[in-house]
């Protein structure tokens, strides 16, 4: 491109540019007003005390100091990490298992896929309601079937496991469908060659399936981790804030909701959400460093 064309766009190119700006304008204005400016405000608010009615006073790092000295905050951070530990690896394992079962030559594939995917379209508020009933300590069907008297929802040692079970159940179909797409991309010829070489199914899984599906697995894992760090609705519906076990299970986003909108301390709430974003950032960085060890992009 010569200099003349650079400085003086042709009429057609100028029209194209105008159309470009017009067509992105609603989105960009929307993002500036609804997201970018709020982000800046949240950042600023985290250094402020909320005086009520949307008025703020700058107090520097005080919210963060209060936060780091607060046992409930550290507990919520741990709860969030613990929730990820309980749900992500087991959830991914089971989803991969379901995906492999659905990838086998079977009849009724569509039916099974529909069934496993069903929780995805049900509002979390509605499905957790039935899980509360199943896990009910006195009359719930689970304790009756097991012949136990476990306080699934009110025992502070158990409640997180209960929530993890519901989370895994809710997400398994979605993750399995994504992984299934990855499995279907693996060329059949690898397995045929392996069969001729007499490789066992186990060998085939570790030598072919796992490496070949690892890029998809990585994407699903990142996505699952991100949404697990932000977990809120499921725990909120399972454990109301009057439940004595709430501190043992409340995630950072639950604490954020309670601090900002129940207690009305929006400065403190903003500090919590900023902390969560940092946590997500750190987790993501570790994932991208760690992926070199196990994700295979060669093929």
């Amino acid at each position, binding site marked *: 491109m010569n200099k003349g064309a650079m400085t003086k766009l042709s009429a057609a190119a100028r029209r194209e540019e105008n159309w470009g*700006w017009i067509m992105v304008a609603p989105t960009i204005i929307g993002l500036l007003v609804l997201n970018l400016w709020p982000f800046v405000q949240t950042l600023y608010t985290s250094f402020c005390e909320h005086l009520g009615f949307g008025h703020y006073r700058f107090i520097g790092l005080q919210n963060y100091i209060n936060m780091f000295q607060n046992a409930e905050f550290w507990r919520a951070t741990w709860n969030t990490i613990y929730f990820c530990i309980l749900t992500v690896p087991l959830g991914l394992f089971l989803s991969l298992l379901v995906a492999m079962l659905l990838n*086998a030559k079977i009849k009724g594939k569509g039916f099974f896929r529909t069934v496993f995917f*069903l929780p*995805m379209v049900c*509002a979390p*508020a509605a499905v957790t*309601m039935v899980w509360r*009933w199943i896990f009910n300590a006195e009359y719930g069907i689970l304790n009756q079937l097991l012949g136990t008297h476990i306080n699934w929802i009110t025992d502070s040692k158990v409640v997180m496991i209960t929530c993890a079970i519901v989370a895994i159940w809710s997400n398994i179909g979605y993750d399995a469908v994504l992984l299934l797409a990855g499995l279907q991309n693996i060329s059949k010829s690898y397995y045929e060659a392996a069969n001729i070489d007499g490789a066992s199914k186990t060998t085939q899984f570790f030598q072919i399936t796992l490496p070949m599906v690892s890029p998809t697995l990585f994407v699903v894992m990142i996505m699952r981790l991100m949404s697990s760090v932000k977990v809120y609705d499921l725990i909120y519906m399972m454990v109301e804030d009057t439940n004595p076990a709430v501190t043992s299970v409340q995630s950072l986003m639950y604490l954020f909701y309670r601090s900002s909108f129940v207690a009305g301390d929006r400065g403190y709430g903003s500090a919590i959400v900023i902390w*969560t974003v940092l946590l997500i950032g750190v987790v993501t960085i570790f994932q991208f460093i760690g992926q070199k060890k196990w994700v295979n992009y060669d093929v």
Partner: protein
Amino acid sequence: MKSASLERSRTMSKVLTYAALILGTVIMIFPFVWMILTSLKSVPESMKIPPTIFPAELIVSNFSDAVASLPFGHLYLNTALMVFFRVVCAIAFSSMAGYAFAKLQFRGKGLLFGIVLVQMSLPSQIFIIPQYQMVAKMGMANTVFALVFPGIVSAFGVFFLRQTYLGIPTEIGEAAYLDGCNQWQTFYKVMFPLTGTSVAALTIFTAVFAYGDLMWPLVVNSDLQMMTLSSGLATLRGQFSTNFPVLMAGSLLAMLPMVILYLIFQRQFIEGIASTGGK
């Protein structure tokens, strides 16, 4: 001899596959079945030890009790309007921007697309307090507008549809342009109609997530008449802490519309959401 044993192990693995899938199906379906069965029981029967499986007598009044304690008509309407407007906005604005980012040359494109990517990588909770304050300042709390508000633009939609437009050969647009279409006509009459599958996927994705969203409706609309199905259900939880038949009836009513749509459009739902995968 060898082929016979191979045959047997193949049958064996097939049996195991089906067994595992059926076990999985039972685990996935059971909560829904239990929800339906409980919603038809009387309260004393629901608390029976040992529990009965089928209701001794069908108590349909649980549903009318649920409707009496939650304004379901309003909840359906609010949810439907919220989903509708969010979907329309997402499709209209994201298609325009997605097309422009994929096919048009304009200064500042990289920077502006950067804004889209930044929004996508931040959790929505980081915007909630200021968004709520904006709605409150406008005096729009407890309205349908408030429910739609954070969904007016969809950064993810822009990203997703940009991918789609990138996949459409530029020659198609150029041909239309040479036929005398201007940029808008090229987009609206030629390119947009080619993105049907992706637009359907974005519609389903937007609808399912708006439908299930809980924190924003809880924050912004505290008036029971202006709640969504999700946030309304959250209030029912406190009211009937022990009346599980009514809670189950309410939950069923709340999830029914989406489940029916899902059962009709299974393939579109699953493939649509899977194609948006990652978000």
